[in-house]
């Protein structure tokens, strides 16, 4: 008999959630067969059986949170003693399947044994019920859906132990929301975002630098590239390209910061923030400094699409992040550093603005870049030179930047 463990699906991820059991207890499983789907904050993973046998015991039903590397089930030979006894006490209550403890059985036992029924009621009051079958009226279900209330946490007062609308209202009010307000609980992604961004703002002393970039040259390069079949370079791609080049020169910007040290990363892996449903993801373009514009554009497009469809595959740890609201008409904004990186670059809209060139005023396509830096790791002069280098790379783009493998001499 071997345990099935909650997989470790990423660094800094202490628990996983059982999403769905594909096998029932007692069902035969083959080595390599997917038996359960688990979720981390950001993605779902399939867990395979490591040997042939029978799924002896499920320790954690769907929706349970389990620390990584803890057993969630046992696989063995039929008749083998399951280690159910060895399961932590807290797992016992919630591991009962609906089949073992169906609603009908519960109702029946309430009729037959009033004392037990009271005990059952007490349980309902004191902790969330895990029964799959929850008796709730259609009106209660609709309201719970609208207010994002888990019916398992609602105390029923309707006929036959049914949750009725007033029970959901009471639960909503108990949570501090007025009856007319809508409660939207944070999903996994939102929770993770909240955690990381709070960490960032609470622990990282941010400072900000601004640069106005004349995009005339970069635009010309972009237009020329976009003439080519299947090539679609965005303004953000131009900035990724320039920033990656600058990072190779300014390696103290390409670091991971810890509390008392920083690690200069050899690879320049640029994350690009992508808005997805209920949050944002930062898929990474690995070794962006070694990629040409067209290749970067292709990576950007594929990454964004994968992120939106929830199909991101982990690539490399990001070392620098770029975030753009330019396409939404935002001129400039102050971004939040994505830890453990030491800086993030915000890209504003390219728009015609009057600029002074020599003694004259001209109208040029201008863009504002905002660099947010972790002052623990980097200082203003160095960061300023870095930002100016990005500006320079963009303003001096030329034909050589159009080649597929960009190895511009520098």
């Amino acid at each position, binding site marked *: 008999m071997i345990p099935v463990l909650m997989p470790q699906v990423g660094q800094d991820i202490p628990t996983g959630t059982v999403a769905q059991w594909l096998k029932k207890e007692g069902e035969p499983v083959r080595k390599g067969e997917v038996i359960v789907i688990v979720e981390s904050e950001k993605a779902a993973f399939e867990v395979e059986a490591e040997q042939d046998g029978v799924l002896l015991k499920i320790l954690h039903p769907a929706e349970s949170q389990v620390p990584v590397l803890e057993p969630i089930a046992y696989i063995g030979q039929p008749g083998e003693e399951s280690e159910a006894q060895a399961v932590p006490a807290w797992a016992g209550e919630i591991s009962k399947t609906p089949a073992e403890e169906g609603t009908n059985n519960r109702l029946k036992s309430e009729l037959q044994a009033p004392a037990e029924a009271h005990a059952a009621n007490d349980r309902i009051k004191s902790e969330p019920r895990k029964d799959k079958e929850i008796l709730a*009226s*259609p*009106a*209660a*279900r*609709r309201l719970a859906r609208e207010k994002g209330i888990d019916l398992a946490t609602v105390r029923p*007062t*309707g*006929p*036959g132990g*049914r949750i*009725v*609308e*007033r029970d959901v209202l009471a639960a909503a009010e108990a949570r501090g929301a007025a009856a007319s307000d809508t409660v939207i609980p944070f999903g996994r992604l939102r929770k993770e975002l909240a955690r990381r961004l709070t960490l960032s703002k609470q622990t990282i002393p941010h400072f900000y630098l601004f640069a106005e970039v004349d995009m005339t040259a970069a635009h010309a390069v972009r237009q020329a590239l976009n003439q080519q079949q299947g090539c679609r370079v965005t303004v953000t791609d131009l900035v990724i390209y320039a920033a990656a080049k600058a990072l190779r020169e300014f390696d103290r910007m390409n670091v991971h910061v810890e509390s008392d040290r920083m690690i200069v990363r050899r690879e320049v892996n640029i994350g690009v923030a992508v808005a997805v449903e209920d949050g944002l993801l930062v898929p990474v373009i690995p070794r962006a400094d070694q990629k040409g514009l067209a290749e970067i554009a292709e990576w950007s497009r594929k990454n964004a699409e994968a992120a939106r469809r929830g199909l991101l595959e982990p690539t490399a740890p990001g070392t620098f992040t770029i975030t753009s609201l330019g396409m939404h008409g935002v001129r400039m904004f102050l971004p939040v550093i994505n830890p453990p990186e030491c800086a993030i670059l915000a890209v504003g809209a390219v728009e015609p603005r009057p600029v002074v060139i020599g003694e004259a005023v001209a109208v040029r396509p201008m863009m504002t870049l905002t660099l947010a830096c972790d002052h623990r790791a980097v200082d203003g002069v160095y960061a300023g030179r870095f930002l100016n280098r990005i500006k320079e790379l963009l303003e001096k783009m030329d034909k050589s930047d159009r080649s597929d493998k960009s190895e511009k001499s520098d």
Partner: protein
Amino acid sequence: MVAIATEIPTASRVMMYREALNEALREEMRRDPKVFLLGEGIAQRGGSYKVTEGLLEEFGPERVLDTPIAEASFTGAAIGAAMTGMRPVVEILFIDFALLAMDQIVNQAAKYHLMTGGVGRVPLVVRTQGGAGGCLAAQHSQSLEALFYHIPGLKIAMPSTPKDAKGLLKTAIRLDDPVIFIEHKSLYMSKGEVPEGEYLIEFGRGEVKRPGRDATLVAWSAMVSKCMSAAEKLSAAGIEVEVVDPRTLVPLDMERILQSVRKTRCAIVVQEAVRRGGVASDIAATIQHEAFDYLDAPVEIVAGRVTPIPFSLTLEQACVPQEDDIVAAVKRTMGRE
């Protein structure tokens, strides 16, 4: 089409249900010479329930006709007259006797408009009365509205108050389609406010007879007053029910019923007729379909027992819904037993 004025609240007086019906007939006969009445004992005797009292004197024997005891014949005669443009009002003394005229009503009156490609009309009103009324036994106590409700082409009114009785009957007479106008024998002597002057009540427009927030009672005809007294009792227990009276079953003001259910989250449909195959089942089905996400409980039906009505008064009362049955059903639905 008849232009229907909305109900305008005016000065009113208290009158009996049967007097209100009499007034409706009188006003419509004065207004339109095509309106005439026929039925058993309606002229010289003034009707078994006195609804047509005094009409022979005012309108003469050509417009108020006593007929033989032959429902199929005089209903058929009335349908023929209606086809030629007259507006007959037939009285069938008991709805139980309407079964004799079913072929005329169902196969002729209800079909004619459609089968003539919309050319022919049957502006007929069949007035009749049903329900249990105190020891009239199995053949004189039935609630048979479902038989007519089942037939496409018929309109059905079942007024619960003198005001509704008058307003609906006047409208029924002016409509160009056959109307089965079902009165209730226990309501003829009931009294209520009736507005002064001319008013009509549109078919398909129900009325909230009592507003409430906790549960919706849907009832028509005599069951409305049973619901109203049940509502009083429930109110004393802190439960405020809303009583919705659709007033006409065809067309049915489902919107008003649904509006109420969406507010209260609970519905109890009350009918005097036997439970099986009744109008209540149809209304309940529509409620659950149209307002499913608003329901806190299954739609309850309080209805007559599936049995012929016994002669014994005690047994009769056991067979049709009583106030206490309604009170119990509301409490059961709300989980307040």
